[in-house]
């Protein structure tokens, strides 16, 4: 994983949006896509089924241009949420610099969230990555749903965020919390680079 290349003066970050099916990972990317000027974004690749479920993955490259003399690029990926696409998830996860875990705030989805979280941990371990050392942020999506359907932030934090990583309420459909989440994960990733990435 070469995050910062001082020779070619490039910074490339791979950020993966992870989470259970229908939690809103692709919606996050869509919103971001809509906000990034055309000159800055690559083609968003989306392999979806006819019912708009991500079959393979979404890929959104963002070119932030020259920052402090470094060509900075972010690559945003989503994984397919459904349980039976685990091989794809594992593949996408390879070489990730940071993970956004998009949780579904609905109370009835709590188990799916937990299962996906465990799956994330297991898949990272397959790549020899300890989740405790990887930049991760939580996004509690669908906060726009009626209160009686969703869990409150504190409850979600209690249930899912046992590592105390930064967490954000979001309504990806309308864009609330999307950039906050992205900002948080990029910051974590970049800060990690400052601490001891290969120079």
């Amino acid at each position, binding site marked *: 994983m070469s995050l910062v290349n001082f020779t070619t003066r490039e910074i490339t970050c791979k950020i993966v949006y992870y989470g259970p099916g229908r939690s809103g990972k692709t919606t996050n990317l869509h919103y971001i896509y809509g906000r990034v000027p055309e000159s800055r974004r690559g083609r968003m690749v989306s392999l979806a089924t006819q019912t708009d479920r991500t079959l393979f993955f979404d890929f959104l490259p963002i070119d932030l241009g020259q920052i402090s003399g470094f060509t900075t690029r972010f690559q945003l990926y989503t994984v397919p949420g459904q349980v039976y696409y685990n091989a794809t998830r594992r593949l996408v996860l390879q070489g990730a610099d940071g993970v956004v875990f998009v949780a579904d705030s609905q109370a009835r989805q709590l188990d799916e969230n937990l299962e996906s979280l465990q799956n994330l941990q297991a898949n990272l371990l397959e790549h020899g990555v300890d989740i405790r050392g990887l930049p991760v942020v939580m996004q509690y999506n669908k906060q726009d749903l009626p209160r009686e359907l969703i869990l409150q932030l504190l409850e979600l934090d209690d249930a899912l965020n046992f590592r105390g990583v930064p967490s954000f309420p979001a309504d990806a459909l309308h864009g609330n919390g999307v950039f906050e989440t*992205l900002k948080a994960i990029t910051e974590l990733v970049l800060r990690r680079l400052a601490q001891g990435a290969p120079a």
Partner: protein
Amino acid sequence: MTTQLNPKFTFETFVVGAANRLAVTAARTVAESPGSAYNPLFIYSGSGLGKTHLLMAIGASAKRLAPGLNVEYLTLDEWVEAFHAAIAAGQGDAFRRRFQTVDVLLVDDVQFLTNRREMQTELLRLSEALQTAGRQIVLTSDRPPAEIAALDERLISRFSGGLVVDIGMPDYETRVAILRRKAEERGAEFPPGVLETVAAAEFANVRELMGVLNRLVAYSAVNEAPLTSESTQALLGLEQRTAATSGKSADGSSERIVSPDEFAAFLTDVTATVGKAVEAWRARIAEAILRWEGEGYRTRRLESLLEQETPVAPDEEIANFAKDVERLRALEAEVQQFDPQAAGQSVFRDPERLAEAEEAASRVRAGAAPPPAPSPALPFSTFAVGASNQLAVNVAREVLEEPGRRYNPLVLIGKSGVGKSHLLNALGLELAQHPGSIVACLSTQTFIDELIIAIDGNRMEWWRARYRRATALLLDDIHLLGGKDRTQEELFNLFNLFQDLERQLVFTSPAHPKTLPGIEQRIVSRLEGGLVVELVEPDRDVRRSVIRRTLWAQDVPEDPALIDYLADRPVDSVRSLAGLLQRVVSAAAGQDVPVSAGLAREVLEGGTAAERRRTVGFRTSGIVVSSAGGVRSREKVVWDWAAPSDRLIEDLR
């Protein structure tokens, strides 16, 4: 008149971020070593960004590090007011004097100097006086010196001559940090996201930010429902600040009001983070430059690193630089000892010229001969002790036990040839036994001659340093100082230095210091301030042991009758006794007969005028010149001459 420093305004409570790091570093440096780094330090920034906080922090920190410092903080207006009041009361001079003794002067808001010519002149005068005396001035303003309207050019150049730094608007992270810290100080807790929301809003300065925090604290005190990010926005009317563009989200709805360019904001944040990450080395180098430059070292080597695109082990470079500076410091300190003038050379301030500095130091080292040492030919062991010099010897022994403490200075007085010089040198030799000691032992004449050469060669500092290094100064024949005003001046300074440092001073003089002509009273009184001890004409014991030793040294068999006869001869000094002996031994050698009492009587009493006691005059240890003129020490002159027959042949050729 002077405002008290606000105890809350310290470096510890100042939140440091990229926008103010330089100013804080400079301020800390100034507080740690006032007057030596950036003088004056001029801090400017928009209102409410921490100038006053930083200014007071300098004062508080300087005061804490050195409680004895006289630290004054005041705003320019206060100063002007006080000045006018002082003038009105006819106390203008007292007012000026009062400020000239301030060690750290902190003046806030100097932009109000605009159109106050009289105060500008006053400040110019004050800053000149303070800077000359090595006292620190720190000024703040809301704009750089050059932009203060109608400001005297001389003030501008003076301000700019130190360090001018600005404090920028803190970045988002710093704003969050400030809000968190202030909230914590007030014991207020806010749900996550609230303070971040406030920080994200574009307030013009930190003071405004504090105002907002106050509102939040007040609001949460009266409302039960916890604040959320949204309610905060509503409370603070932040919606109006952000242009209302409808969020064009996936489903096309427009319920959300978003900032005009979320991506641009994101990009700005990322830029800051990336900057910090990949450019952290630049900040470290900049800090190092600031630090070393402040201490007066050339930092060209570090500056050239900043010009590079990619860092080549910057930390290593900084460490190397620091190491070189350390070496330069050591060299400079060493050279300082030998030759303070040479120590001031710029080569000792430029790590790039370390090799040159090493060379210069070794040159100085080689040139710095130690001051003249005592003569090894006059040790204590050959000094004959008797009742006539017992006191002096005892005193000398006591001096050796505690050099510099017990009798300082020690002045040995006595007529010529009684052993003053011998005792002086013997003392010097013993003192030199102490590890690390450098004993300067020389005749006053040599001291004067050296000084003249030093003045001639413009090497006074070198000369002084040479003697200042000495741990003991022993001067023979101090009466020769008479009329040598410059030498007395130099000796006076050395005298004081040696006494302050408890280093031993020993002098010899033919008479009591107060009877010596041409010696300044201040030196006489200092000489009398120690112990003046007299060596008198050698007693019989001394004479006997001198005779015995001299004869033994000449391989003359010991003859009690001879020794008794010689010891009973009337002599006024050891030296004339040695002269008598020498005459007898030479005569014996010339007549090829053994040395005996009879021969001695024949040689010494056969002469006529030979035994006339010479009149006593002040003399040095060499040939005797009496105050009446002419050479009177016949013992020294006559007996070395060759036989008359040999001389005649020589002349005839």
